[in-house]
């Protein structure tokens, strides 16, 4: 689902209603961060459980790039 760009929304708000300057805004930010963290957990799990361990991935990626 396409969301509206943060900047578009923020630009319609004046300084006094900046999300981070009100308690409602703060709780919205916290809720967004929690949703992001939850989704990140699943993605981290997937990203780190590939064929290669993290260290092996970094080493192989480095090697294939020719180690410039």
């Amino acid at each position, binding site marked *: 689902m396409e969301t509206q*760009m943060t*900047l578009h929304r923020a630009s319609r708000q004046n300084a006094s209603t900046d999300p981070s*300057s009100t308690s409602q805004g703060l709780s919205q930010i916290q809720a967004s961060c929690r949703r992001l963290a939850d989704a990140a*957990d699943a993605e981290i799990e997937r990203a780190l459980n590939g064929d290669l361990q*993290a260290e092996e991935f*970094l080493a*192989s990626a480095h090697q294939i790039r020719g180690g*410039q």
Partner: protein
Amino acid sequence: MAIFKPRNSSPQPIRFVEGSDVPATHLMGFEQEMALCATKSSGPVPDLEILLKKLCEIAEESLIHLRGFGDSGIFIANGGRLYVDCLKYEYAGPECSDPDEMVKYLLAGERILAALASELARRTGLDDAGLYRCNVDYVGSATWGAHESYLTRSEPSKLSADLIPFLAARVITAGAGGFRPLTRTGCTFTLSPRAWHICVPMSQSSTGAGERGIFHVKDETLSTGYHRLHVLVGDAICSHAQNWLKFATTSIVVALADAGLHPAREMALCDPVDALREFASDPTCKATARAKSGRQLSAADIQRHYLKLARQHMHADWMPAWAAMAIEKWDAMLRQLDGAPDSVATCLDWAIKYRVFQSHIEKKGFDQKWLRNCTHLTDFLRCCLDATPSAASLSEFSPELLLNPRGPVRKIVSQLAPFLPSRAMEWGQLETYLKLRSELFALDFKFGRLGEKGIFNCLDRAGVLDHRVAGIDDAQIDYAAAHPPALGRAKLRGEAIRRLHKKGSRDVSNWTSVFDSGNGMLLNLSDPFIAEEIWSKKGNPNTACNFPF
């Protein structure tokens, strides 16, 4: 007021300042370097050079294109260019006239490249092949650039003082996030890993280690009558909104400088490189740097100074038509950054990564403070190893080596042991730290992978990000993959490429011309705003001289 000078029936006429040939339309472009990585379970992965060559072959087979003159890759139907440089695959977008277009053509290129990488894996029997917007290599010292170009009337060298403070300060709005590179043991978050590859305020070089500058004085105009400011202090970023803001704000600041306003008069920094790194080190965006005026300035202070000037001149006839809208968005973002990092955690790459890394660190039972302590400890041990003659040549940095009762740093290890508990540390965690460090680096590397496997793209699909630019949709991106922008020479280049490609001849292109070998005709594109195809008779550029255009 600016007036419109439609030179032909172009749908969006180019704006010119009244009574002059100074364009109010601001052309800009970008180049993005990417790392190609591949895995194969059965047998060795072919050399990078072989894979890149194969990738180029696939691009030539599958895309409408003309060969670049010499050995310079291919120019494709959207007016952009694909090529290999220093073992890095690069996409240079066509010249664009507004930030919407820049984002569209950036995303279009990334879509093309993701498809090419998938096809490479399929054809070469690899388990996986991907292109990564990774910015830095955490194992070695390689770095991948995301460069920008802005058309100016002034010689770039005359704009350096006006732009350096802005380019240092824009890291809080344009940083990709990651970890400080070029460290063998540390794990310190930064708003921009590339900032540590920028070592001098100004440079001629864009590639040499220790030589890259905040301001690039190169003036390869690639046009007649204009100059091209080449910006190399920048990261490859995924957020559409962040890319939009990066292109828009930089273009506006370049316009202020190009108009002779000297926007940085009160903002000159004592040590711009140090300031860049200070700003890049603080996710709250409150870090300050000393200005020559004696004031301590935060990155937001510096940006607000430019913003104020931009607002004062937003209706000037040399300002782009989209300036007023961009200024509002810029202002909003600076206010939003007051609550950084959380307030921008779903829209700026560095802040998204900060939250992702934080999540992983906490899941492992640690926090940033512990990571910082481990960084200090391991950096210190690495220095001790380097200072120990018998161990200085050891590249390995393992718990086995460090904790070996007969190892080279055994005395230091035993002397430090009593101090660790007060910092919630113990020697047994050394291995855990090094593993976590590798995982965080790998996450950063995989964050910007093109295509559906990239972490950023996965989070986007999960609907937890807020980074889209209203009005830029999938259909427009697909269109931009195959068609050039609506105005300027990129339009003519793209149209000529599409027409000539059908002939399958030895026609060639570069940024300033297209050569039709069949008819011996040359399309001169040295005027960036040219709106009409004017062909003239020429010899074959491949045989006539080294540089025919």
